[in-house]
């Protein structure tokens, strides 16, 4: 694209310059065919968001069934087989079919808009990404009509080998990893190329929106980590069906090799899931604090440092395996190090609120939930990084609580902040504020009631992935608290679903920039037209929309002062 030809300001007159050579006029398709064949990044983004949210609901229902089973000691509601299938489906769904791809959904919709591009670099490849993701999900969920996998989302060998997991469900899991992995790889390359090449004039790396920074890092991490898991599950597939013995100890293979390969991917995956969440927080906080992000460079750089260190901490998932002390020490120290850039982010976010004028809209409130919960997840992360402590809490409900504080309390609350923040842009309509706040309140209370107590459940000796537990001590009471919390959390999520369904047709019209946003997506209409922008402004700072509003204000000063003196006054501060 010849972006040099674009004007400095939207008001300047310019001669029309053709930017794309058209070889023919495509007929506008309608309805279903349009959705099936679209290569528009916004439509693909919506497909991603809706599809992954459906998987989120499925994974959530699985979680509620798990909590129902654990609601009483020695419960016989579910068989051990069904229970193992449920937690395997739950974990796999939430990671491969929800958190990772919904970030791609936000990325798809907003990266081109935020950098002032008219689409992704490879629109057709983009469509392929989505359809690969959907295929992966369908292949995996088809197994519920046969035998779902039951070796956990980690599929540790030898349990996942044919001798112990003969059902095709395990193979469905492998194909899910292949298909969603391909989807993410193709998507990651697309994000990288788009961000590297298609930024608006003037948008150097130092003016890239922080969400786009995290999507860039997300893409790089995917490119580095996914080939390893793709190779590992392929070896698992040949072990299962063609007699190779890579992971089979009876044939000289190594179960620990699987664990290393799995976690070499599995830990970066955690950052793949949470970094774009950080990006959303870094976008939303400044808008509602009416203040620039505190320490833009530190916040952007810490994402890169987290990603680098995130590639060096994988064996902290393996502190109880037969490993030499020097290995345990290395992975403890590298895990400690990652707390520094993460801490920097948290401090910078809090400092962003400092001396702001905070408007308590739903997106901001979800950010507050994120901050407090992710803080707890980060702190327990340090605890489990201390390997002698991990020897006590590893594979217990303490760890379950820890990673839910990171991924549910952290990433998912950030996703909800993103939904409430960007829904007006995607649909052109506002979500209902009181309903959003009730949704948050129930989710916040439900989440903490569910997972805070699980730290104690784990320290009392309850391992994860057990379908029943004895009625000793207060174990049953604690589990009941957790189960009640899960349903409150579910109700909170339901309120947001209702909110979205109500508002998509009937919500108040949002206008192009309802929040007074800082980034370019608010420059265009809501929803944006097919080509996103007729004109792309020259970027002069990290907050181009603030610049534009100031410019507009300056030009219309006399008229504005007469009409409404207070409306725009906060902009100038």
């Amino acid at each position, binding site marked *: 694209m010849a972006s040099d030809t674009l004007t400095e300001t939207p008001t300047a007159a310019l001669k029309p310059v053709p930017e794309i050579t058209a070889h023919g006029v495509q007929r506008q398709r309608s309805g279903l065919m349009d959705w099936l064949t679209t290569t528009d990044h916004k439509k693909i983004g919506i497909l991603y968001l809706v599809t992954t949210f459906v998987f989120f609901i499925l994974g959530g229902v699985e979680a509620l069934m798990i909590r129902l089973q654990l609601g009483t000691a020695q419960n016989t509601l579910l068989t051990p087989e069904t229970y193992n299938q449920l937690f395997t489906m739950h974990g796999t769904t939430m990671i491969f079919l929800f958190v990772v791809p919904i970030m791609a959904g936000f990325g798809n919709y907003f990266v081109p808009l935020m950098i002032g591009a008219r689409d992704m670099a490879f629109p057709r490849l983009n469509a392929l990404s989505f359809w690969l993701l959907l295929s992966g999900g369908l292949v995996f969920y088809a197994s519920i009509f046969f035998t779902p996998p039951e070796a956990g989302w980690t599929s540790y060998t030898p349990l996942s080998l044919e001798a112990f997991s003969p059902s095709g469900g395990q193979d469905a899991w492998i194909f899910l990893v292949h298909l969603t992995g391909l989807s993410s790889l193709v998507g990651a390359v697309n994000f990288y190329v788009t961000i590297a090449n298609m930024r608006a004039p003037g948008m150097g790396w130092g003016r890239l929106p922080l969400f786009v920074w995290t999507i860039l890092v997300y893409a790089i991490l995917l490119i580095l980590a996914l080939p390893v898991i793709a190779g590992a599950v392929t070896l698992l597939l040949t072990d299962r069906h063609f007699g190779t013995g890579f992971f089979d100890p009876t044939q000289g293979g190594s179960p620990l090799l699987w664990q290393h390969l799995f976690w070499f991917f599995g830990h970066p995956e955690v950052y793949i899931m949470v970094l774009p969440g950080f990006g959303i927080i870094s976008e939303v906080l400044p808008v509602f604090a009416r203040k620039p992000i505190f320490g833009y460079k530190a916040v952007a750089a810490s994402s890169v440092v987290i990603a680098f260190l995130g590639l060096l901490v994988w064996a902290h998932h393996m502190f109880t395996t037969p490993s030499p002390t020097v290995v345990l020490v290395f992975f403890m120290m590298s895990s400690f190090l990652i707390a520094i850039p993460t801490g920097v982010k948290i401090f910078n976010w809090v400092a962003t609120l400092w001396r702001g*004028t905070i408007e308590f809209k739903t997106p901001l409130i979800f950010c507050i939930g994120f901050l407090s919960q992710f803080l707890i997840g980060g702190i327990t992360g340090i605890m489990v990084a201390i390997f002698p402590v991990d020897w006590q809490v*590893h594979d217990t409900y303490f760890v379950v609580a820890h990673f839910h504080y990171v991924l549910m309390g952290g990433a998912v609350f950030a996703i909800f902040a993103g939904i409430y923040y960007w829904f007006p842009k995607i649909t052109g309509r506002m979500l209902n504020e009181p309903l959003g706040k009730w949704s948050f309140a129930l989710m916040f209370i439900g989440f903490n009631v569910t997972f805070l107590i699980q730290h104690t459940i784990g320290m009392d000796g309850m391992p994860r992935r057990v379908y029943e537990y004895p009625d000793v001590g207060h174990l049953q009471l604690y589990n009941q608290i957790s189960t009640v919390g899960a349903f409150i959390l579910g109700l909170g999520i339901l309120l947001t679903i209702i909110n979205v369904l109500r508002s998509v047709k009937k919500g108040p019209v949002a206008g192009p920039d309802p929040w007074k946003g800082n980034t370019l997506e608010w420059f265009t209409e809501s929803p944006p037209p097919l080509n996103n922008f007729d004109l792309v402004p020259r970027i002069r700072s990290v907050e181009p929309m603030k610049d534009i509003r100031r410019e507009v204000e300056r030009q219309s000063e006399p008229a504005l002062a007469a009409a409404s003196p207070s409306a725009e006054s906060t902009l100038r501060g």
Partner: protein
Amino acid sequence: MGLLPRRYIFSLAAVAATAASLLVTPAAMADFFSPESGGSPNANRIDTLYWITFAIAMVIFAAVIGTLGYCLVKFRARKGAVAAQIHGNTRLEIAWTVGAALILVVLAVVTFAALPGIRDPENSDAAAAAGIVQPVAAHGNKKVPADGKALNIDVNGQQYIWRYTYPDGDDNNLNNPFSYTEMVVPVGVTVTLDIRAQDVAHSWWIPKLGGKMDAVPGYTNYTWFKVIKPGVYHGQCAELCGRNHANMIATVRAVSPAEYKQYIERLKNDTKSADAAAAVSRKKLDANPQANP
């Protein structure tokens, strides 16, 4: 602002619910906030290490949440309030980066100080050990007490049961006494464990006796404990091993050294009489294959 009271209701409800979930029971607060301990010195030292970490964590948590809460109350949008357009403060940012690093240095030092006491087996109590401990060799990841002697028990995980093989003083491993699910050990004696698995991965864990160690097929893992007072200590497999993972329980019964010796004698005698009975049946079958032994 009409919004404000409602926001307080939300916050109060959240705080109340969180507090309730913490304080709903008059459980022993020590066990509520920390891992199980009390059975063995290594478990107690992990507990101590945990409490130090927990204390530091609480300070950080209170500081960050306090500042966050202060911001939310103090800097909410009011009429006429103008947000300070601060873009950052390099000195401050360097300060909290270094601060975070220093806290981690402290945690690392504390951990390294505690590590030997947790990882390295202690000597057995002299009075208890007589006639029970034997020399054990350190190799690879295996640590042994300073005096080189311990009661070395082989732990074998199998779907869905634990098998324990006790030493009997000779080199023939085939005639050693063994038991399933319940391990019997003498109080005051250092027990070193060789942990293996023969089908899928399992994990050996008795919370009051220290951390867990995975049993991985093809590998041997090691840990130790020294039971402080007699009693029964419960645990269960901590690594998903299949459908009945939840039922793969383990107990350690700690008895006096004298009782331990009797127990091993009884195991030997039981094995002997079972062998004798089997020999009789075999003879019968050899004579008449149709016979029902």
